[in-house]
Every structure is written in structure tokens, then in C-alpha cells.
């Protein structure tokens, strides 16, 4: 390829926009236009909509979602750690460098910090569902 290294990116961008625009214009020109109430209604997995989606959700949903993030972070770090743990222990034993306990203690500290956050949330009643 010759030219600027980002030339392809530019062509791709412009081409993408043009393609979408052309497709929308062509379908707008060709399609028949017969709107009805059923067609305009919200489609949510076949469920009948019972009202507008614009109302206040209980903040508790967000709390639970946040608590879930704690577990997610835990898993995101635990899995690679667990996969590599065997390698590390073999390496430490073979080469005689580093204590095998080092990685275990390190993970324990990490988990302790996360669990502290979780215990805090539990003790503050974040999981107690308050109904009006």
C-alpha cells in the first residue's frame, strides 16, 4: 500500500457512512408507508408494555449491581491467578527464588480488601430489600 498509513481508515469511514446513508435513502424511497398503532408500540420480547419506561427505579437495584461488581472484580483477578499459581509454585521450588507463600499471601490481602468492602455493605443493610 502506498499513501498515508491512515488513508485506509479514512476510506473505510467515509465508505461506511455512505453505505448506511445510501441504504436508508433507497429503502425510504422504495418502501410503502402504512403506519399503525401496533407497529409503533414498544416491542419487549413479546411482553405487552404496561406503561412508560420513564419512571423512577428504586435505588436498590443500583446497590445490588454495585455489589455484583465486587464479585466480578474478585473473579476477574482470581481466575488468572489460580491458572498461574501452579507454574509459580513449580518455578519457586525449582529455582529456589521467592517464597511459595508470597503469591498466596498477596492474594489473601487482595481478597481481604474486597471482602472488607462487601462486609461493609452487608452490615450497612445494602442487601435488605425495603418495600414501601
Amino acid at each position, binding site marked *: 500500500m502506498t499513501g498515508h498509513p491512515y488513508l485506509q481508515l479514512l476510506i473505510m469511514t467515509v465508505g461506511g457512512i455512505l453505505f448506511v446513508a445510501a441504504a436508508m435513502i433507497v429503502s425510504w424511497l422504495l418502501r410503502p408507508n402504512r403506519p399503525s398503532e401496533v407497529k409503533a408500540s414498544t416491542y419487549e420480547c413479546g411482553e405487552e408494555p404496561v406503561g412508560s419506561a420513564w419512571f423512577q427505579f428504586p435505588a436498590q437495584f443500583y446497590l445490588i449491581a454495585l455489589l455484583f461488581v465486587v464479585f466480578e472484580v474478585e473473579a476477574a483477578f482470581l481466575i488468572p491467578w489460580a491458572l498461574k499459581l501452579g507454574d509459580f509454585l513449580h518455578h519457586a521450588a525449582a529455582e529456589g527464588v521467592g517464597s511459595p507463600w508470597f503469591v498466596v499471601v498477596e492474594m489473601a490481602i487482595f481478597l481481604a480488601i474486597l471482602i*472488607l468492602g462487601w*462486609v*461493609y455493605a452487608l452490615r450497612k443493610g445494602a442487601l435488605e430489600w425495603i418495600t414501601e
Partner: protein
Amino acid sequence: MVYLIPEFLLVLVGAVGLVIAFAPSRPRLRAYSLVGGLTCFGGAVVAGYLAYLATTDLGAELAATAPGYLTTTLALDPFSRVFAVLSLIVCGLTFLLSKEYLETRMQDHQPELLAVIAFAAAGMSFLGSARELITIWFSIELLSVCGYVLAAFTKDDERSAEAALKYFILGTASSAFMLFGLSYVYGMTGRLDLVGIMEATAGDGIGVLLPTAAVLMLVGFGFKVAMVPFHMWCPDVYEGAPTPVTAFLSVGPKLAALAALARVFSTAFPHEVARVAWEGVLFWGALITMTLGNVVAIKQSNIKRMLAYSSIAHAGYMLVAVLVTLRSDLALSALAIYAFAYVFMNLGAFAVVTSFSNRTGSDALHSYNGLARRSPYLAWAWAFFALTLVGLPPTAGFLGKAYIIMAAWDAGATWNSPMFWLLVVLVLNSAISLAYYMGVAGRMFFKPPAHDDPVPVGGGVGTAIGLCLAGTLLMVLAAGPIIGAIQNGAVFALH
């Protein structure tokens, strides 16, 4: 690992705060704020020793034998440890100056506020030493997320909620810009560490995207620093947030972002095209930031808004030091000294405001009329902090400005060069700032008070004011060692 004692201490103090918050029999808040504050000051001494250690042979040996994951993510140089000292001092002073506010004006979640401040200070300390894009991003988010929570702490207060929402929305938007910039840098160079980025961009053929990425990153940092035009959030957030939180927000994120800015841009982008871009943006940024901050501050009628604009102006002064990091050996020392001076004078001024509003519930400027009669300690303390903030000798503020001017001069500010005029603007701005700082002092000493009720000063906040006064005076002694440590370390300057 020894190098990370300051950060460990801050996280530990925060964790203890959380435990206190859910402990069944609640230990006294008083004990926590006192012990936590003292731990921070003790940690500051340790961090100061580490900064000294980093210049010695033993320190070099320790750094050489440190595990790789540590040295690739964090710079263990004196500059980073000097900022660790700063983070611990900020945390300790905020602990002291919050105590009375927490006891009198907050019903619940008192230990949490202090704990979140400790976590934010840890983020501040990490950001000062981060040398790798992911660590930088992580530190800046640790600091930011804690900041959003802190701004919302009096959540039943409408203005606190408004401040937090503004801070959050604008903050995440600027974070997105920064992340976008970081992704460009990684995409172009394939490297995450700053030195690697510098090496990868050494040749030609990098093109226009690198300066674009640098400027996008500057948006993220500029928001934290409150550089014009990313300063809009600053007055509203400072006014709405609880006053001790405002005190912390006005120093913590700003100084850490400035330190990171100096490190990132001088390490990763020292080559021509990108350098011209960020130096150009910073030049105009510094000039407009200091001028706008000072001019708008004059018209304010609320002392927290006034101090918000004043802190914008101070960010402008410090940006001059960041601007010349590649041109002058003195720039980093100047930045560190100004940062220390700024911590003491700005936290001191906010401590006076906190103490006053704890008793009177007012932040309006006119309520400060005749304070000299109602509380001589607060009035004299303000007068002194005002002198320091203006930068009059023999105070720490003068020292900081003098070093910034020296660094800029060293960087080649000859007659009629742009740098020369930037310095002229800086000096003129100091003169402008005299008007509003001294305006408040004038109210305190020469206007009649509405009534003569005394304004008592609480123990914690009074101590914080005293420590800040001592700090601004003793900076003259500390400046030598700080410069010595940063110059001798030179680890960061060489990269």
C-alpha cells in the same frame, strides 16, 4: 516494597475507617480522626525519609532489586516520594480540619468520609508515581471516584447532590477523552510504559495522531487540574460540597494531576511534533487559567467560590512549571515546592472557612465583616494565608513563585520571548490576586461586625490552622532538602 509504605499506610487508614463504620460498638470518631491524622503525619516523615533514601546508594540498590512488576508500573524516584509526603500531609490535615464539621454538621456516615479521603489520598500518591498508562488510569480513577463520592457526602443537601452530579458527569466525560487519547497512544506505539512510548515515537513517521492523542490526554488531566477551559465544574462543586471535602478537592486531585502531567508529558512526549503541541496548549492554558481565575475571583460574593477561582489561578501558576519540565532542571523542584506551599496555604485558608461556617453556617463574604473582633485567631490566620497566597515574601507562597519564575527563566525567557511575557502576566496576576485576598482581610479588620458574638475555634480545625501556619513558615527550611532530593535523584529527568 519499602518504597510503598506511604500508600500502604493510607489504604490501611481508610480500611480501618470502614471497619469503624460497621463495628457494633462504635469507637469514637474523635479517636479515629486523631489517630488517623497522626498516622498520616508519621507516614509523611517516613515518606520524607524514603525520598532521601532514593538519592542514596542504598536506595539505588533497593530500587534495582525491586520486583519487575513494581518498577515497570511505579517510578520509585525522589519526586514520587516527595509527592507521597504531600499526599500524607494533605490527608492528615484534612482529617484534623474535618473533625469538628463531622461532629456538628453531619448526622451519620462520619467515619466513611474520612475513610474515603484516605483512599483518595492513596490514589493521589499512586498518581504521583505512576509511569505506565494503565496505572495512571487506575490512579486517576481511584482519585476521581472517591472525589465524586466525597462531593455527594451530605446527600440530603440539594447543592451537595447537584455538585456531585456535575462533578460526576463532567468528570466521566473528561475521563473518556483521556482514555481515548491513551488508546491512540497504545495503538500507535504498542507500549504502555512511558519510556517505551518515548522510544517508540523517537523516529519520524508517527504522524499527526500522536499530538492529537497528547492533547486528548491533556483534556483529562486539564479537568483534574481545573485548567481553562475545563474549569467550569470547579466553582459549583467547591461551593456545593461539604467544606472539608472542598478543602481536600482543591488540593488533592489538582496536585496529583499536575505531578502526573509533568511526568507523563516530559517522559513520553519529548519529541518534536507532540512536544510542540502540548507545550503550545499548556502555554496558552497556563496564561488564560491564571488570568481568568484571578479576574473572576474578584467579583465573587461567596468565599468558597472565591477560593475556587483562586485555586484555578494557582493551577495556572503551577502549569508554568509543568510547561518548562523539558527545558529546565529546576522545573520539577519548583513544582514540588509550589505544591507544598499551596497545600499549606490553601488548606489553611479552607480551614479558616470551615471553622467559621461550622459556627455561623454562612459562607457569604459579608458575614466575615469584623471577624477580627469576633475571633482574632481566625482573622490573623486568614491575613497570613492571604499574604502567602498572594506570594509576598517571606512566606512559602513567595518561595514557590520565585522558584517557578527561576525555572522559567532558566528555560530561556529572554527579553520579549513568549516565556518572558508569560512571566510578566504571572507577576501581574499576583498583583490582581492581592485585591480579593486582602479584600476579605480588609472586611475582617476594618468593617464593623453585624454583632459581637465570638466565633470559637474547634480543637481539630484550630490545630490544622496552626500546622498550616507553621508549614508556610517552615517551607523556607524544607525547600533546600526538597530540591536536593529531586535534583540528585534525577531518575525521572533522565528518562
